[in-house]
């Protein structure tokens, strides 16, 4: 899998290239929006990591040009400014995620992996999270290659969590996901399904309870 890194600071760029390289990605690095445009036109990438503060045309301009040109490559924006305006305009312009400097390298790698996985699953209807493999089209789950039998409601909860991997999913949202099949579901129903999922999936899919909010399926490295 191939990642384009657009970053003008040599020290940062070098670290990102090495970090992503160690995680098993092929990394191309350019130091300006213009060169990034050329690279994106010539090759296909699975992810672009774009710094906002580039000399000349900035990262947001590059992002805008990409989205206007119809590019669906996921974009992870990096910025040293944490003013909200930057964040809002980046997400409005079609960025997929946003990281404020200084960040830890493992954080960048984890976010990159999540973005690539999300875009792949959208393309292939398959989601792989560590030992867990979900076939979104056939509604089938496998742990270490062994099929796990799930009820429709259990599947709906797992799918909703898996599509939002690493993010907290509110209980209300999970309720909506299963309400399609059953109109009278108590608020406790979700707890029941989550607890059954935990039993069936074991450690392959650690589902965290976030008190007062909902649940989060944790990302496993790999």
């Amino acid at each position: 899998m191939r990642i384009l890194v657009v970053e003008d600071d040599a020290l940062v760029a070098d670290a990102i290239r090495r970090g992503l390289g160690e995680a098993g990605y092929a990394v191309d690095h350019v130091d300006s929006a213009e060169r990034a445009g050329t690279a994106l036109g010539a090759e296909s990438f699975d992810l672009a990591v774009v710094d906002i503060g580039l000399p000349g045309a900035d990262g947001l301009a590059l992002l805008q040009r990409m989205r206007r040109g119809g590019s669906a490559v996921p974009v992870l924006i990096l910025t040293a400014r944490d003013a909200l305006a930057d964040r809002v305009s980046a997400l409005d312009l079609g960025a997929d995620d946003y990281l404020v400097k200084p960040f830890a390298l493992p954080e960048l790698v984890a976010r990159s992996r999540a973005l690539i996985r999300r875009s792949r699953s959208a393309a292939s209807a398959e989601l792989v999270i560590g030992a867990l493999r979900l076939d979104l089209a056939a509604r089938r789950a496998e742990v270490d290659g062994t099929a796990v039998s799930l009820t429709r409601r259990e599947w709906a909860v797992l799918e909703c969590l898996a599509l939002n991997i690493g993010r907290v999913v509110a209980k209300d949202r999970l309720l909506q996901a299963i309400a399609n099949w059953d109109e009278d579901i108590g608020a406790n129903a979700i707890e029941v399904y989550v607890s059954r999922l935990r039993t069936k999936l074991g450690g392959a899919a650690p589902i965290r309870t976030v008190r007062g909010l909902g649940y989060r399926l944790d990302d496993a490295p790999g």
Partner: protein
Amino acid sequence: MTRPAESSVSRRLLRLLLLPLALLLGIGVFFDYVSGSATIRAAYDRALHEMALAVAAHLRDADADGRIDADLPPQAVAVLRADSVDSIYFAVRAGDGHLVSGDADLQALAAGNGSEFGDGHLHGEAIRLVTHPTMIGSTPVTITIAETTRKRTTAIRSILASVVLTDIVQLAGTLLLVWLGVRYGVRPLRALGEQIEQRSARDLAPLDRAQVPVEVRPLVHTLNALFETVRDSARAQQQFLADAAHQLRTPLTGIIAQLDLLAREASGNGFAPRVLALHEGTRRLAHTANQLLALARSERSATTHDDFAPVDLEALATDAVAQYLDRSLHARIDLGAETEPARTLGSLWLLRELLGNLVDNALAYTPAGGRVTVRSGVAGAVAFLEVEDDGPGIPADQRAHVRERFRRLPGSPGNGCGLGLAIVDEIAHAHDANFVITDGNDGRGTRARIEFRVA
């Protein structure tokens, strides 16, 4: 030393207008009275004089020896004296002074060639008299007519009463009009004062010049220029801080990321502890730089209400929990939310910074196995954000000090730089919000609460 009296335009106007006006009207009353009573006096005098002429018409030169005949039949005398109010006296004297007819005790005035008016007393009463010298044949005769002054006094009194009454009504009307006029006239000033008074000190939007009277337009103009200057300087400060943040963070990012790599490469060899120490030190440096930038950005001089908008405090609270979840898992602290819908007017990124610091602080000071809860909601007239932990708590006598910059409780764990609560304090101030630190539930731990105005 006495304090100078508060200067008020309307009071000053009233003082400057009311006193001279009252004086002017008082003088008007006096002159109206004087001229009115003079007219009455002249009219009564004329009537008196006509009586003298009427008496003269009845006198005859009886014979050549100079004796005068007063051809005054009793009926005529009765007609002359007939008056329901005043007593009328008359005396006709010949040139040698002897009384021809009338009242002997009425003395004539020393008359020249013309009629002479004068005042006197008769039978203990004030009288007005006229002495009219005339010639009957070749004999000089003096006719004196007098009347008491009751009618005059009554007439003058009634004139005085009506004049004074009219003038007093006029005076009162004028004073009322002046008072109303001044009040109405200074209303735009009062409105401007109220408009300025009701603004938040951080509201730097220009004042509307259209509704302001010409006289204070320069003042409003200057105020607006001042607002503009403050806004510009706040904007310049924000711009500088954004640039400074970029210049500081980019190399720090490079160093930290490189140290991340180096630490992995060095793991197992003798350099590892030193690389890890470097990594940790740099991370602390980055944290301090971040906190300093956050503090500078949230300072009053750098924030205006220009970018204030309704903020969903509940979303802010749940976001904060999601954001700090990994850290809480790592520290084995149960981080949770108890949120109710709440909104206030504010700056989203400043409030995010504020809540982040509170949660960060709670996680830093709560031991493993503890519990940190983020709350939002509305209580009465305030919307609140709250972070409660069941850690060791902040002693009551330290609660004011922990908001000071670079202040850390003695013996604190972790490696904070002591700016977290100072940032919270600044941002709360910028939002005119209360920052209250109390004990947590059951007197354990700390409850940090920010109370906003409900939006």
